[in-house]
């Protein structure tokens, strides 16, 4: 092995077979950093073909996520909602993926991708009803706030199990292929999730069976308090995908245009039957992991400040303004309009109040049982007695 092989063929494998090996180009894609917009909002590479309307829609989608997060974080601390995990700073990957999908495609969120559901047509009020677990919530407040799901828009309900989304996404994609549908699935995972068994299983099955799935890893540098340096010794997260024979890309996770370009290509490859892709979006969790987490205990504030300058909304806003697609004034107007829209929706949904206690007996079993009927009747009798 004196000479450096041009193609990294795994040893022990027959050269006669056509082995899907990875080249230097593959490796460069998985360890470099694909970028279109730099931190200052300057376009360094060709911008994907998108109409002005689409570009504005993506901006507003990110902005809506940001503003909603601000409101929900405040409400959580006021005791108005039980839990909120925000996506501040990570909006680009969510919206880029949502925009790259067709209506029939499936979105499998990890933790911080709820704004993709709104982007793909979930009414804001439906989302807030779920967040509040109020009378309008289809789940009657039984699901963790924010883990909204919707059949109508093919947005899979959230799961708190880390990396469970990888096999879920693969399964959905594989099912679509077996049925001969052209559906593509996007599945999200975090940097912490890449250390889970489910990450390996999902990726491996998808690769072997060429499932039409695109995995997006939101590498936000922190799995609660575990930094990336303690998460993996690999040169990047994306490079792990190459070991499974999956085309893998490392992309600036705060650059919505670069993310869109890479995810869109991956979606098209999947739709054409060419199998899965794995995309690492290099981003940063600007806030805490959740309400019980205090990042000041383990994170250098200088690190957070440095990422503040890489804000995905900021750079995209600068570029949109420079392109005269959406001026700074128009951006401010959009902010105000969306904020009012959110405030109004919150007011309406908060007024709806909690679901009736009797709804506890609903949806327990597909077919009503005598036991449930009896319990419900007893409850209603007791209620009546208490009132009279």
């Amino acid at each position: 092995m004196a000479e450096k092989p041009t193609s990294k063929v795994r040893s022990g494998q027959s050269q006669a077979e056509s082995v899907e090996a990875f080249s230097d180009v593959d490796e460069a894609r998985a360890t470099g950093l694909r970028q279109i917009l730099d931190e200052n909002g300057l376009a360094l590479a060709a911008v994907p073909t998108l109409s002005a309307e689409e570009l504005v829609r993506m901006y507003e989608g990110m902005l809506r996520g940001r503003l909603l997060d601000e409101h929900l974080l405040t409400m959580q601390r006021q005791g108005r909602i039980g839990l909120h995990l925000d996506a501040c700073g990570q909006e680009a990957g969510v919206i880029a993926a949502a925009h790259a999908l067709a209506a029939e495609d499936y979105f499998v969120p990890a933790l911080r991708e709820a704004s993709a559901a709104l982007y793909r047509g979930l009414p804001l009020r439906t989302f807030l009803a779920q967040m509040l677990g109020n009378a309008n919530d289809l789940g009657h407040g039984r699901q963790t706030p924010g883990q909204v799901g919707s059949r109508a828009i093919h947005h899979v309900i959230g799961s708190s199990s880390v990396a469970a989304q990888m096999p879920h996404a693969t399964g959905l994609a594989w099912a679509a292929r077996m049925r001969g549908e052209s559906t593509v699935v996007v599945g999200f995972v975090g940097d912490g999730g890449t250390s889970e068994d489910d990450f390996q299983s999902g990726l491996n099955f998808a690769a072997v069976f060429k499932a039409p799935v695109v995995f997006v890893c939101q590498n936000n540098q922190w799995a609660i308090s575990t930094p990336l340096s303690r998460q993996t010794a690999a040169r990047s997260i994306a490079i792990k995908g190459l070991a499974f024979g999956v085309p893998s890309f490392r992309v600036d996770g705060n650059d919505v245009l670069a993310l869109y370009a890479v995810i869109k290509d991956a979606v098209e490859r999947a739709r054409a039957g060419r199998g899965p892709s794995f995309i690492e979006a290099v981003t940063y969790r600007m806030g805490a992991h959740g309400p019980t987490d205090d990042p000041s205990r383990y994170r250098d504030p200088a690190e957070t400040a440095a990422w503040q300058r890489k804000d995905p909304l900021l750079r995209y806003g600068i570029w949109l303004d420079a392109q005269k697609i959406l001026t700074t004034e128009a951006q401010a107007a959009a902010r105000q309009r969306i904020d009012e829209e959110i405030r109004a929706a919150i007011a309406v949904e908060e007024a709806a109040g909690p679901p009736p206690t009797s709804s506890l007996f609903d949806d327990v079993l597909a077919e009503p049982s005598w036991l449930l009927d009896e319990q419900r009747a007893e409850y209603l009798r007791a209620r009546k007695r208490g009132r009279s």
Partner: protein
Amino acid sequence: MAYEFRLPDIGEGMAEAEIVRWLVKEGDVLAQDQPMVEIMTDKATVEIAAPRGGRVLDRCFAEGKRCPVGEVLVIIGTADDEDRTPSPVTPGPTPPFATAPVASTPARESVLATPAVRKLAREMDVDLTTLTGTGPGGQITAEDVRTAKVSAGLVAPAPRPMVTGDVRIPFRGVRRQIAEHMLRTQREVAQFTYMEEVDATELVELRNKAEARLASHEVKLSYLPFFIRATVEALKKQPQLNAYLDEKAGEIVQRHEYHIGLAAQTPEGLMVPVIRHAERRSLLDLAREVERLATAARTGHVSPSDLGGSTFTITSLGALGGLSATPIINYPEVAILAVHKIAKRPAVVDDKIVIREMMNLSLSVDHRMVDGHDAAKFVAEIKSSLETPGLLFLEST
């Protein structure tokens, strides 16, 4: 109309939060969602914004204090409210999920009880519809059911058959106090016991020599003064064991006075006379004091001034003292040391089995404040002093 903002459970099952910093003063006019206070839960420090606009009428907890979940944290009036004493509260459009306790639920609208409680009620033959629940939202708890059963029992006590030969002793006085005190410890303290073995051969030799010398002083020198001295020296090094928990202030108070309680059997029952300022006393002085208190205990003449105020307790049954025990802490102290009998036992010294004077120590500590590591260090300290008792004079007064 004033609005009471109650501290919600913003963590996952938190019970209280410490007020770190108020960002507003009484009299300030707030906008809705304006940050008003920084609080620290056991997990994180977070800012809470005003759930509605208005004038701050009352900040109910000072900085550094702990506010329980569900308590009123701040009272907000309207902007033109000048009154600092809030008018009776109408919750107004309270956010439906604020964790305000449901104190004013419309008269018990149903029997609220979990299946387990319902089962208990059936078993105890208690009618749930006759009870008022004390649980959240008026829920009937298992305790409510038991209380109902007990009070029903008190109203109509079941006749108890007298069996010849049974002796019935009124449960009151010292016995009852002991019972309540012990129960309180069991209820409030997370107690664990740590046991260790001590080679007391040198201690026995020293004490025998000392006793011979002291014959003229008319003082009986037991081992207890040595144990007290060793304990005080160890407490100086591990001040967390000479402490109590001030729950109201949310502070652990470490004492730098060493008042050693001695569990003593009196004709009326267990009492704990106290040796004040054990750290200021010589061994001889300790011996005199131990003897005085022991005599008082034996004859049932312990003076009230000798009781109470101990910072640490030692329990010793002398020659009866068993092998090991799980002594119950003398609340609100954080630890109690039981010293057991000294007896000749085989021990291994320099790889040979020899006869040594061995004894055991059992230390119970309150795990809320003292961890196993500290308990072990404390006992190791005492062990080392007792095994080489000359060390006790290194820092003696």
